[in-house]
């Protein structure tokens, strides 16, 4: 394979710098020792990270986001795993339509989903509740949970299952002892990707969150709307650190290109 020429490498370098710059600048400003927005030219300081503790609404929002992400991804899997097994194994009428329906939250703009859920949950008397947030997040993370489980279920070797059946295993035992362990890497990666999606969602959640149930992105967004100061950069730096950790774990256990390759296919 031919190598890249000098021009290509210059383009590549500039491209990577532009891609990284906004993220890097947020992380750098977070360490400023000054009381205003500035790059930490006079040494690094953790003062703005310590300041987060004085803003209980950020800390509370963080726990809301964490609980919401963990729980909604788990609930999504409870619905997605059986659906993925059915779609992977059976050819039945309506199969394609069902798959399209289950992946449709990827195609519907989140602002539309936010409005639809706001209207729906307000009429149902659940407006602004944590339960409403969970249900809404289950819907938006469902395609990610489904897709990775589906990939695992499609690539699975069925002979092990058949052996188990011939030895008398059936139903729940078969699923718990044979099928689930075999598709577990896909299920766990599906959970992780679903978690990240839930943890990062702003557009839909901003419609549903009430003062007690604000998630971290919503809290950050509302804060930025009023003013931008080093505090919000230190909160952002924490969020970036958390996502990076999840990202590296996901890459180690599953391969980031495999996780994301599914994501880029939304148009098809």
């Amino acid at each position, binding site marked *: *394979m*031919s*190598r*890249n020429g000098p021009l*290509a490498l210059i*383009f590549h370098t500039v*491209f*990577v710098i532009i*891609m*990284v*710059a*906004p*993220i890097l*600048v*947020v992380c750098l*400003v977070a360490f400023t020792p000054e009381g205003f927005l500035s790059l930490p030219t006079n040494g690094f300081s953790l003062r703005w990270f310590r300041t987060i503790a004085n803003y209980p609404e950020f800390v509370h929002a963080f726990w809301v986001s964490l609980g919401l992400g963990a729980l909604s991804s788990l609930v999504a899997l*409870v619905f997605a795993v*059986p*659906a993925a097994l*059915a779609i992977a194994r*059976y050819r039945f009428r309506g*199969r394609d339509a*069902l798959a399209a329906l*289950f992946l*449709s939250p990827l*195609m*519907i*703009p*989140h*602002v*539309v989903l936010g*409005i*639809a859920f706001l*209207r*729906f949950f307000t009429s149902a008397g659940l407006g602004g509740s944590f339960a409403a947030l969970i249900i809404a997040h*289950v*819907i938006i993370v*469902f395609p990610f949970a489904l897709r990775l489980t589906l990939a695992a279920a499609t690539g699975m070797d069925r002979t092990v299952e058949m052996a188990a059946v011939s030895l008398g295993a059936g139903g729940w035992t078969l699923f718990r002892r044979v099928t689930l362990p075999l598709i577990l890497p896909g299920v766990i990666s599906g959970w992780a990707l679903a978690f*990240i999606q839930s*943890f*990062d969602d*702003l*557009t839909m959640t901003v*419609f549903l969150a009430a003062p007690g149930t604000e998630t971290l*992105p919503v809290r*950050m*967004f509302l804060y930025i*709307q009023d003013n931008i100061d080093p505090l919000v950069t230190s909160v*952002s730096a924490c*969020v*970036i650190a958390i*996502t990076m950790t999840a*990202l590296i774990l996901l890459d180690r256990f599953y391969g*980031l*290109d495999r996780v*994301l*390759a599914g994501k*880029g296919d*939304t*148009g098809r």
Partner: protein
Amino acid sequence: MSMAAEERSLRAPWALTAPALMLFVGVLLIPLAMTVMLSFHDWGQYKGIEAVFILKNWHEIATDPYFAEMFWRTFRIAILTTLLTALLGAPEAYILNRMSGRWKSFFLLVILGPLLISVVARTLGWALLFGGNNGLVNKLLMSLGVMRSPIPFMFTETGMIIALAHVMMPFMVLSVWAALQRLDPQIENAAMSLGAGPATIIRRIIMPQIIPGVLSGAIIVFSLSASAFATPAIIGGRRLKVAATLAYDEFLNTLNWPLGAAVATLLLVALVLIVIGSNALIERRYAEVFR
């Protein structure tokens, strides 16, 4: 297969998908239908939402030039963002694909990773870089001699497009990257051995094969940019409205839910038509590539 087993294999897929299907009908399709219905309801400052069937909101959107201007701005930003990602993302994917194993996976992680980092954090980064007239971007451009006086990025469409292109770039790189994976590197070598220069190879061999990838990436980037909320809201501020931020305002500030629902419905319908239409076009034009 015995009769009982056969019957079970007919029923099994439905039993397995039933919970998810009920969930989707109950809390996705019904809320969406309610939103469409809401767009036909009446609203008044003092009476609130009135459950009647009128075309008032749709009439307002169709006749008030404010909405035409806002939708035009939304789609203009989405189109320019798509062009920018295609122009920069496609060559980058190509360069990335020619790197050796270790560098390739490292830079793939660096470029695709931001996809999973909070959009709020990424847009905040651009807000910091843009700053006011003496933001970092302006300082850099002026010291490089690209321009003499600072240009405003915050609260402008230019700034919105740059930040949006950054947010959407991974989708484009990913899509072109996927198309490049299907490409046989030997064809390039064959063309070279037959005497084709680099320009000819790119124009005659590479371009035709990655165009479908660019186009499917463009569909994703366009539909996500047209409905983007966080970036236009933070960079555009309160004045420069796009469809998503306008709907947000109607719902949470003005409280005119029926009008907001009409804006959202129109955005959804327009996007679905554009996406399905261009998908069909691409698949017909490049049927052989998708086979």
